[in-house]
């Protein structure tokens, strides 16, 4: 059963952009100075273009993409804070355009907490419960539970304005997780959170999915996607460029592997000769004391290993260790975006 259906959503914004077409008048330059006097015009910016996908009940769905690719805009449309210019999306069958009030009872977001400058975390969360129609007695219980879950119990009675970025992230996540909803829309939920807490919070998100709740996760942290998501949507320049599971995405982007080699008694310039071969797609070398930590991305591991052995033998180097691994999602994503960029450049040319 589909929990979220997104059908051909497009969103445009109007924004003022500086233009170099016309020279500002002497009067403007006199008043505002040269830098501020630049002429501006209103331009239409495409935030999302024909985005479609579905998310099943109990799935964790990741939205990945570089900055400005439209991840947050997409989440805000699903959260009914923004209206799409074209298309529609359905949360548990209700349209975000026509039935926003019904959708709002089914969703929970981590980007909506409203806090007064003098409120403590506990007060902010209790107020958030009230705005989301949770009864007072239940709210107290839920707030205590979620504060414990995100590791803020001991600092729950401190003023939120004094919280660090990581603590604010935890509080935002808490505001979302404490509500019992069908769909959780999370924007960068683990940003700035320390690794130990992040690990526990990943477990909490996974538990929500096991309970049959749907989670949509917009993030730049590829590790979160790799570890949490059942399906990933990659946005690039406002369009969907891939919609797969992380595993399939890694495989479809390129059948290549990573070779990690630690070497000693060898100069890095010798290893750079490897880049002359077409089989070596990428090479990175880090020197630590007298060791060379090398990462080679290749589509022919055996040939690269032979080449490497020849080079080491010839230059009287020493191999300390070799490890062969599948590429991580980060490599796959970079490769995908590179290809997309090359394709668009060719099209433009």
């Amino acid at each position, binding site marked *: 059963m589909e929990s979220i259906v997104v059908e051909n959503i497009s969103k445009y914004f*109007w924004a003022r952009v500086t233009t170099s077409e016309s020279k500002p008048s002497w009067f403007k330059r006199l008043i505002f100075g040269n830098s501020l006097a630049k002429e501006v015009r209103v331009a239409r910016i495409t935030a999302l273009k024909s985005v479609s996908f579905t998310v099943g009940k109990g799935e964790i769905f990741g939205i990945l993409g570089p900055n400005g690719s439209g991840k947050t805009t997409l989440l805000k449309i699903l*959260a*009914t804070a923004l*209206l799409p210019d074209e298309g529609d999306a359905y949360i548990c069958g209700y349209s975000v355009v026509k039935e926003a009030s019904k959708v709002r009872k089914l969703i929970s*977001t981590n980007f*909506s907490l409203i806090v007064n400058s*003098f409120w403590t975390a506990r007060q902010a969360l209790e107020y958030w419960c009230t705005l*989301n129609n949770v009864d*007072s007695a239940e709210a107290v219980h839920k707030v205590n539970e979620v504060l414990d879950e995100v590791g803020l119990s001991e600092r729950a009675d401190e003023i939120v304005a004094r919280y660090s970025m990581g603590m604010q992230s935890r509080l935002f996540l808490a505001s979302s997780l404490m509500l019992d909803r069908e769909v959780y829309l999370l924007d960068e939920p683990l940003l700035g959170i320390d690794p130990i807490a992040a690990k526990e919070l990943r477990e909490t998100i996974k538990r929500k999915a096991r309970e049959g709740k749907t989670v949509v996760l917009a993030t730049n942290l590829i590790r979160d996607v790799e570890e949490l998501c059942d399906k990933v949507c990659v946005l690039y320049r406002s369009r969907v460029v891939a919609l797969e599971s992380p595993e399939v995405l890694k495989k479809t982007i390129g059948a290549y592997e990573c070779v990690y080699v630690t070497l000693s008694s060898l100069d890095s310039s010798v290893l750079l000769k490897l880049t002359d071969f077409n089989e070596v797609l990428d090479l990175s070398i880090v020197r630590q004391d007298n060791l060379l930590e090398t990462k080679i991305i290749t589509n022919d591991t055996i040939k690269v290993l032979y080449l490497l052995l020849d080079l080491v033998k010839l230059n009287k180097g020493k191999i300390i260790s070799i490890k062969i691994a599948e590429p991580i999602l980060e490599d796959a994503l970079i490769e995908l975006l590179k290809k997309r960029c090359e394709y668009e450049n060719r099209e433009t040319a």
Partner: protein
Amino acid sequence: MKIERLLKKIAIMVLSDIRVVFIYQYDILFQVLNIIIGIASYYFIFKYFVVQSTASIYGQDPLSFIILGMATNSLLITAMHSFYAAVNNAYYRRTLEKILTTPTSPYVLFIGSVISSFLPSIVTAVTYLAAGVVFFGANYGSLSNAGIALSIPALGVLCTLGVGVFVAGMFCISPMFRQLSNFVMTLVNLFATTFTGALFPVEILPWWIKILSYLFPQTYTIELVRLSLVYGLNAVNLTELTKLILSGLFFSIIGVILLKKGLNNIRKEGFVLPEKGITLILS
């Protein structure tokens, strides 16, 4: 249950704002001092200069005339400005965007903000009236008419809120007006403070300013408060009362229609400022 929940949401907002008012308690003291000094200056002006008083048609001495006008006006200016300020703040501080993702109507946010902004202006109005009587012997009219005179500012506040809703509606519906809104609101506030009869009778104004003055519910309210305190309710007052209600209804109805359409427009346009971190209701 639904109403109880609604009232609770508004009450939490109002209570937290009251808390902020008490954090800045010295501001209240300075405000009171400012009011007393303001009345004192009028008192000494009237004491040492001969005043040709048109105010006598209202049956009051000039000082009482001015104090009543300023006290009523402090409530009315808040009524006109608070709704617009609530929508403006909610838009620019992004609380509007955030509340749109919850089952709570954004009107709850606006109403809570409006109620809390009345608290300081009630204190101001009461201070004007009390300081006038205690320190300067002001006489506002007959005590037997106090009930009617008190209900008129309440009605006036409701009608003037309509102007605020109208301006807030314009703010939401037109991005062009949004950029000019602070400038427009400052002009309107200035006009309403000066030309709606708070400091001098509207009768002495040139005809073209008088026409503008009578567009504002404030003019009828201030006039009615003065007349009803001295003469009670009579035929003249009832005509003015009808005009007040009609002007209030006019602005309210158009304002609500604009606001409803405008909120949808804002969801279409998006929110202009980049945002990350906590949204503060008050700063």
